[in-house]
């Protein structure tokens, strides 16, 4: 018996941002994200409250994906940040924090939201033009002929994830490995449409980080020692190994219908007939001189036995994630049906051998051309390994983005404070005609610009999690950290040694000022200068593409949310 229920009317909320609950949730989210930011960020334990796996992390990708929220305003924010993360991996927290701060700062201005949007778009274009110009004081060109800048980029990513629990030596070791793995994936022969290869991360939990390694080619774990040592493999006349790649299950159960019923007479075994078909495939493989069969899923033990007796190595349960790189590396087409086996499907390999790491055994497939490599990643326990894996993937993505656009931005808060200084300087020196173009008064412009700069600076401020002060200098506009517990009366130059990114020392008098919070007075500012030397060994660098996108996404999302007038909620 079914029962009809009357539909509930939809809920109609006007001006969602002015509601208390929303701004509280928003500021709570901002607090959570700010507390995660940077190398000294606080960690979050994500779990279901009923025992089981605990994810300890400070990375936006892990937090945002597990933090479903109830309010649509937060939903919009998180969706656009997650979209940014999926495209760039890096700068997720930067984007989210900046976005939250912008919403809060713009809301407190008391200026019509359409005016704020117009002004902020102009400010964004000022920033983007500056970041793209040669005179930009906060970006560095990445020189691919030396590894130093690249290592700095990778190290900065690793260092900003404290839940990986790495010490300095371990960071250096891993940074080298990640860079090495990345260089493997760059094709040797550059063509016009060169495609990067792939680095596959092989999990090795509960080992020391220093045991991590990079190998060219792919590793497939074989659960038990099924392989004779030393491995003998059939080769073709050109001394290559022919490989067949199957992406279907060969376990012999595919006769089972998904829908409907099959009726068979007693004495007829569908299992046997299926197995016979599989064995026919095996026969053809042997005839075609295939030396290695890799199957994504399970191979029937009888087929395995047949192949083994005929000198063919069979490796099953390779997993979905390996199929694409396997096919890429060997040039083979994954076979999806046992009925269309053609010689054109086969690929080739240079060598196959057995490797063992700790208690695990692997078949190591070595290709001719190494654009695919394996990073055997170790960390001491599960939660730190998971965090490290995310960090490594981010670092690899950052390197790929940097290859496309060989630039990097100064990290450690310096880009944010430098941009803020630049905008402060620029907003004072705009001509009156440009205000008319935008359609606002100079005061309005100045107010919005100040809100924008304070938002940028609040991102830099959230790098600090102690009670210490944060300064910016009036010459370069960089960001400086003062250790906690000093009286504000003492001279700043005694307390700071290096700026956040590591480019500037405190050699000259840089006219520091406190990076104020919400209620700072408007500061007049000269155009910030470019530091004289930009080459240091230990720079903190951020990914250029990711940060530029983050800036845009944050501002556009903030504008979108400030412009929200109604929320209509279906309550059924």
């Amino acid at each position: 018996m079914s029962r009809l229920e009357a539909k509930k009317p939809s809920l109609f909320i006007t001006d969602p941002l002015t509601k208390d609950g929303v701004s509280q949730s928003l500021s709570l989210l901002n607090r959570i994200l700010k507390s995660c930011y940077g190398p000294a960020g606080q960690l979050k334990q994500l779990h279901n409250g009923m025992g089981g796996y605990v994810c300890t992390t400070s990375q936006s990708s892990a937090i945002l994906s597990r933090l479903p929220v109830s309010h649509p305003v937060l939903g919009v924010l998180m969706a656009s940040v997650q979209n940014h993360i999926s495209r760039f991996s890096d700068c997720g927290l930067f984007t989210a924090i900046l976005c939250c701060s912008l919403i809060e700062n713009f809301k407190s201005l008391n200026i019509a939201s359409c005016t704020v949007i117009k002004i902020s778009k102009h400010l964004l274009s000022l920033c983007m033009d500056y970041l793209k110009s040669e005179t930009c004081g906060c970006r560095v060109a990445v020189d691919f002929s030396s590894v130093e800048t690249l290592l700095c980029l990778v190290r900065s990513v690793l260092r900003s994830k404290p839940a990986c629990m790495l010490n300095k030596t371990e960071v250096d070791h891993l940074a080298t490995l990640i860079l090495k793995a990345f260089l493997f994936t760059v094709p040797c022969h550059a063509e016009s449409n060169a495609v990067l290869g792939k680095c596959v991360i092989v999990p090795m939990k509960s080992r020391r980080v220093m045991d991590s390694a990079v190998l060219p080619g792919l590793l497939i774990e074989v659960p038990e020692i099924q392989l004779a040592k030393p491995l003998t493999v059939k080769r073709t006349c050109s001394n290559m190994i022919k490989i067949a790649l199957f992406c279907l299950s060969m376990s012999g159960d595919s006769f089972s219908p998904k829908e409907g019923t099959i009726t068979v007479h007693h004495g007829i075994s569908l299992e046997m007939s299926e197995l016979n078909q599989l064995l026919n495939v095996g026969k053809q493989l042997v005839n075609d001189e295939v030396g290695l069969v890799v199957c994504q899923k399970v191979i029937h033990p009888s087929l395995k036995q047949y192949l083994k007796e005929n000198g063919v190595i069979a490796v099953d349960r390779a997993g979905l994630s390996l199929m694409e790189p396997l096919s890429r590396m060997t040039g083979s087409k994954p076979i999806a049906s046992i009925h269309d086996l053609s010689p054109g499907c086969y690929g080739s390999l240079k060598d196959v051998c057995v490797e063992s790491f700790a208690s695990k055994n692997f078949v190591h497939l070595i290709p001719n051309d190494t654009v695919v490599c394996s990073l055997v990643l170790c960390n001491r326990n599960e939660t730190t390994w998971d965090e490290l894996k995310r960090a490594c993937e981010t670092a690899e993505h950052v390197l790929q983005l940097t290859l496309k656009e060989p630039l990097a931005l100064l990290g450690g808060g310096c880009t944010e404070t430098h941009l803020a200084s630049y905008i402060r300087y620029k907003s004072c020196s705009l001509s009156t005609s440009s205000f008319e173009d935008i359609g606002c008064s100079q005061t309005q412009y100045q107010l919005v610009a100040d809100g924008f700069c304070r938002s940028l600076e609040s991102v830099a401020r959230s790098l600090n999690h102690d009670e210490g002060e944060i300064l910016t200098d009036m010459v370069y506009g960089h960001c400086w950290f003062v250790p906690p517990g000093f009286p504000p009366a003492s001279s700043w130059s005694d307390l700071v040694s290096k700026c956040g990114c590591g480019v500037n020392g405190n050699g000259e008098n840089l006219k520091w000022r406190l990076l104020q919070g919400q209620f700072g007075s408007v500061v007049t500012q000269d155009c910030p200068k470019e530091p004289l030397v930009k080459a240091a060994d230990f720079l903190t660098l951020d990914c250029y593409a990711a940060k530029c996108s983050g800036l845009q996404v944050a501002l556009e999302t903030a504008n979108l949310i400030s412009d929200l007038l109604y929320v209509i909620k279906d309550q059924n």
Partner: protein
Amino acid sequence: MVLNRSCLLPMAFRDVNARRHIGLQQLSSLALAGRTLLGPVKSCKFIVDEITNESTLICSAVRLIESLDLTSAAGQLLNETIQAQTKEFKTGMSTLLFLVGAWSNAIVECLQQNVPVSAIVSVMSEGLNSCCERVQCLQISIHDVNKELCSSSVRPYASKSKTCQTGCDSLPNSQLFLYFQKDISVPEVIPMNSCSHQDDDCNFNKHLVSPLPGFDSVASLVKPAGDKSTSVISGSGVATSSCNKQKLTHSRYFSTLGKSRFSSQQGNFQGYHLGPSADSCECRGLGHLAMALSHGNETSMKLLQSIVTYQQETAKHSGSSQLNVADIVTCCLVGLPESYSCASPGFVTLVSPEQVTVIKYFEDKLLRILLIDGDLTEQYRHLGFNRPCNVRTIVEHPSLQEGDLWISSMLDNLIKFEVNLVLVKGNVCKNLMESCIANSILLVSSVTWNVLCAFGEVTGAQPVTYLSQLNASCVGSGAQVELWKACDGRAMDLGELVPVRIKAQGLPLLTALLTTTVASKMQFIEDQFWTLMYRLHHALIDKKVFIGGGAVELLCLSHIQMLVEQPLQLPNQNAAKEFHNPWQAASARGYNSVVLQALASGWKQYLLVVMCNTTKAASELEACTSVDNYLRKAADCGSPSAYILNEFRRGCLLRDGAGPFTDHREGLKVYDNVTAKTEAWRRALDLVLLVLQTDAEIVTSPRKNQLLNSHVSSEFMFL
């Protein structure tokens, strides 16, 4: 709907009064339960399940953690860390557990003194690094250890009695002395291979000094999982200080002292007896090393020694490595006295009594062997095979039963290929088993993979999954079966199951037969055996060992003392290049010494508890005085490492962990694993720092209402 449970300590640096970190407190209370498991003399615990009233005896951190209620996030992380250490080393878990507790406490104290989190994190991890580098000078290569241990066993006994004397002097509790004397009845002490010129007094003295393995069994009661963790602590806390003395009077109920002493010697005869030991020094060396790593666990040590010697004997022919863990299996025999423990070449396992006739029939015959890597039942299909669901079979003439048909066809297969012996990885169908017995085929179930592989290699058998795969090339030959006979030549009948020994020419497998009459002890006897096995294994992998008996921890303490006094030494040259270095910030503020002392307190607590557990000190205060004494002497001496090394050589370092080796003159030397130990430190500190840096829990549970109604609802914030 998702809830954000804002931290139980809201942003530690904002609110001074809230400087009590719940996560760290949870860690410390969980770790407290493991205090008595530290050191060579452990007090066992009974884990009692209040619902079923079942109890088990546990004696290791892993088993303790397995039986505790770990639903809190910090508890889960602790479990994960302990499991990781187990997986990797199988030793050092108690150390890890203890240090987690000690460092959690120390850090909570730092927080109360307003030390910023970032300073604690950086100073502690830098400090640990520095200590790990410092203690490298206490490493000794395996080669040197062998030389030293071997030479000391050849050296005449001149200097020995003096060592013993000093040993006795440092034993603080004269009461204990008496108990020891009472308990050890002299006739049970039969020196093995005894040197004729060995002084009787000396022998006796050593007895008194050494903690005896049987004494370690005093159980403190631990409440079961499902109870709050605090109740565990209250249960075990009481026992810690007092029971070590009491246990001596009660020990005869738990102790297996007399028997095991007797047994281990018997064991040597019944186990694989090895060639002349005196002339092959290198091979005896590993045995010595095993002893030095055993930390007083005599039964396991004896077993391991005979295994090592056997493997070295065979290695001479094959040229393989020194200790092959994959070739060792254990077989647990409950109901036999511990004196029957021994190592036996081949694979010993338990079979049902019905099969005894088949075994007797097979004796002295060479058998054809088959290996099955799955179950041997009609329903079994290989992993990854999904049972068809929509297939119907029409039976026109219901006659023979399906099952019988299957059994007879399987049996036909076995008979066709003249298989005598089948080793099955999984279970075996009962009816098939009966049919096989009737046809004189021996089926052995639950055989592990490494055993199958070993038999495959020497007999030429290829493991198959189904009997239908059988062909001539799968069947191996040359296996032999016999009933396992105990030392007195008598085949054991344990009522339900019968031990059987399966061997083959050239089979590298060795079975350690672990016996006890107390069923609840079985688990920890097995655990202890494997722990010792892996200690030796890792020592050989590391190719070096630490000098033991607290030397390493002592040097750490002395090193930290030096760091505190000369803070400029610690930041390395690289640090100068670093920017925004929290280390510099910390040292500028003088957090340095507070945090370093917190780090040191972990090791100090460790030493104190070990000394108390081993009854080297009557109270923690006394132990503390003694440790401070050593530290002062080490500092006065100028080179602490040289002083500690020297004290170790003289055999009077803290006088702990010497082990009850009354029948071995070199028993005073104790060594520890290098990597396992430093990794245990690192993992413990990593865990504590991970929890320290956590300021909030985010509960991704869909049950918002339930949380809202709970008593902690005020701690939650909702997004």
